[in-house]
């Protein structure tokens, strides 16, 4: 795209597989950051002339989005914050007003990541951040994700599935050095969230959507070799293939295989002469 190009809301809405409302909201943020300009009766136009300008502006947007809620969540996931926090302690740590901290906590509480305790304290809910919790997460998903597919009324969102396919293709065709674990996790979470959202069972849908939000928020520490990253991406494509052919039983079985492969974990500890320890010690 070049300076002055028109950005039709409808085209972006179709490309992203979402309604025009979030596109309009995104355009408003880009306008506030002077990346787009808005003309009465005409819509939005690109107001950046060079790639460098656009990159810098996007970085600024990214920083703006790197909100207090995100910082609090990251610090909790990285064990910098205790389980129970007060608004004043957070206010001091982040040099933010009490009001800003309260807004951040409310944002996090909407995702079930914190809850307000009686009084003024807030408590973080368990995250998926230890070998045991990762194991429990896989147990939960092995039960629920195939169920999300085989429950009556599953309806694949073809547009979003198409978008996901192209992201997966890009990942699979990227140079090994560019196919990172972080990039994998973003696509992986989008894939599993899509499956959850397309389920015909509202309770399965609700539980899984919330769980995937928690997965996204949690810092899942395990790095994986490139081979497994690519293999898992191919498994995603195979599940999408089956869903598009309405072979739901097959897709559910493929999901089980995919999750079982993904949950294989390295031993916790190993040493000469001792059988490797699969799970962390009891103390």
């Amino acid at each position, binding site marked *: 795209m070049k300076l002055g190009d028109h950005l039709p809301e409808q085209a972006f809405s179709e490309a992203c597989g979402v309604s025009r409302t979030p596109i309009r909201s995104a355009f408003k943020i880009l306008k506030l950051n002077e990346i787009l300009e808005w003309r009465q009766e005409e819509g939005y136009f690109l107001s950046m002339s060079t790639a460098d300008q656009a990159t810098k502006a996007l970085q600024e947007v990214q920083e703006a989005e790197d909100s207090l809620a995100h*910082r609090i969540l*990251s*610090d909790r996931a*990285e*064990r*910098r914050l*205790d389980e129970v926090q007060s608004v004043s302690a957070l206010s001091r740590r982040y040099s933010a007003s009490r009001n800003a901290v309260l807004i951040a906590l409310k944002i996090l509480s909407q995702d079930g990541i914190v809850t307000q305790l009686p009084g003024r304290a807030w408590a973080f809910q368990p995250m998926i*951040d*230890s*070998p045991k919790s990762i194991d429990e997460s896989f147990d939960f998903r092995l039960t629920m994700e195939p169920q999300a597919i085989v429950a009556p009324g599953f309806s694949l969102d073809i547009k979003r599935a198409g978008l996901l396919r192209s992201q997966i293709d890009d990942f699979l065709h990227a140079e*090994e*050095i*560019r*196919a*990172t*674990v*972080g990039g994998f996790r973003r696509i992986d979470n989008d894939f599993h969230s899509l499956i959850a959202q397309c389920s015909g069972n509202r309770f399965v849908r609700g539980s899984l959507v919330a769980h995937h939000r928690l997965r996204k928020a949690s810092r899942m*520490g*395990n*790095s*994986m*070799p*490139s*081979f*497994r*990253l690519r*293999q898992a991406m191919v498994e995603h494509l195979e599940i999408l293939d089956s869903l598009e052919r309405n072979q739901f039983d097959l897709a559910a079985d493929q999901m089980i295989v995919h999750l079982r*492969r993904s949950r*294989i*974990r*390295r*031993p*916790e*500890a*190993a*040493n*000469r*002469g*001792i*059988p*490797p*320890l*699969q*799970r*962390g*010690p*009891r*103390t």
Partner: protein
Amino acid sequence: MNQSPTIALFPEAGFGAGLNCVGIAQELRRQGANPVFICHPGFTGVFAEYGFKEYHLPQTIKNSAESVEDYWQSFISTHRPHFNLNSIEQLPTYVAPTWEAIVDTAIAVEDDLAVLLDRIKPDAILLDNVIMFPAIAKAGCPWVRIVSCAETELPDPGVPPYLSGIPVENERDCAAFRKEYEKCTRASHDRYNKFRKSRRMPDLPPGIFIEPSPTLNLLLAPSAIRYDRKVPLPEKQFVFLEGCVRREPAFELPAFPVTDGPLIYTSFGSLGAIDTDLIRRMIDVFATIPARFVVNVGGFEESYDHIPDNVFLGNWFPQPSVVAVSALFIHHGGNNSFCEALFHGVPSLVMPYCWDGHDNAQRAEATGAGRRVDRAIWTAQTLRSEIMSLLEDHETQERLRGISRQMQTKSGTKKAAETILDAVSGTR
């Protein structure tokens, strides 16, 4: 020989040997071979994640999850204090019982290993272990020994005794250590020789649990840290590699609340991670240093809280990729860790706790590749001072960059794969 020879890699049940073999297997695959792994129970999937076929030694009652947990619990409470002893004090307390356990495992897997090898019918076997398995010698194909511990594993008058961490010039201490080593390992060694005899294998000399392969032996030690051997190893049979560093996905630097300062990576391997008290004390020191620290705490993340803003914990990192972007590597002297630091031109601060960690710590100091810290006596002040001095030592950094350039032009994994395939095809 088969167009695509099947090479069975059999690493011991540890990450050092296992991941070292992954590096060689990646290159063997690239050069057209068919590398497969023989896995100990507990390592299921570790090699499959790198795309290699696995064959598994069976799970025994002794290896059930419950008994393994009991074993480790007892191991941790028994041996954690021993890691603070010096290398000669560790001989009766840690090294002797470890050799007993190693001999136990070698005897226990022998029959199953023979069955697996008969099923795989490999064109060659790569053994990365500290003990020999008669089934390998009798498999009817060439076997290659990978010496993935320090070079000290192959004795020579010009090389200090294995596991001693004593400079070779200190002849009196070396002699005392050799004597004590033979004494402490005698019982397990006698038992092992009896086992070998029962399998029609010749006795090994005192203190030696594995013989050189008649075909090919690969040593990881890069030229920068090699010893001047009094009896040179025959070049046809013994090949030195410039390390053997595997490929991992690029490391994405985590977002620290503190955004500046050099990156320092700390990892004591999966065994070292059990000493959470020590790592916690180190993290308190890290908080006072103007640098960012990535710390591998293994499966013990739940033991930590109040992590400082310049520290990031994880249970597993793509280590070679992290070391590549680090200014300093604090490690236990594991041979892979030491070689990776040299490969990427990164100074080592070695805090050994057992086995050849002592040897590599001594060698790092002797060759100017890093410094050694005694895990039993360091203080916040001495640790801080060691870290700062290595970060500011531009002369060492420049020298290490030269070593790195040399190692990177002679890929250890590539040379290993080429040499193995030549040996298998009989052209070597």
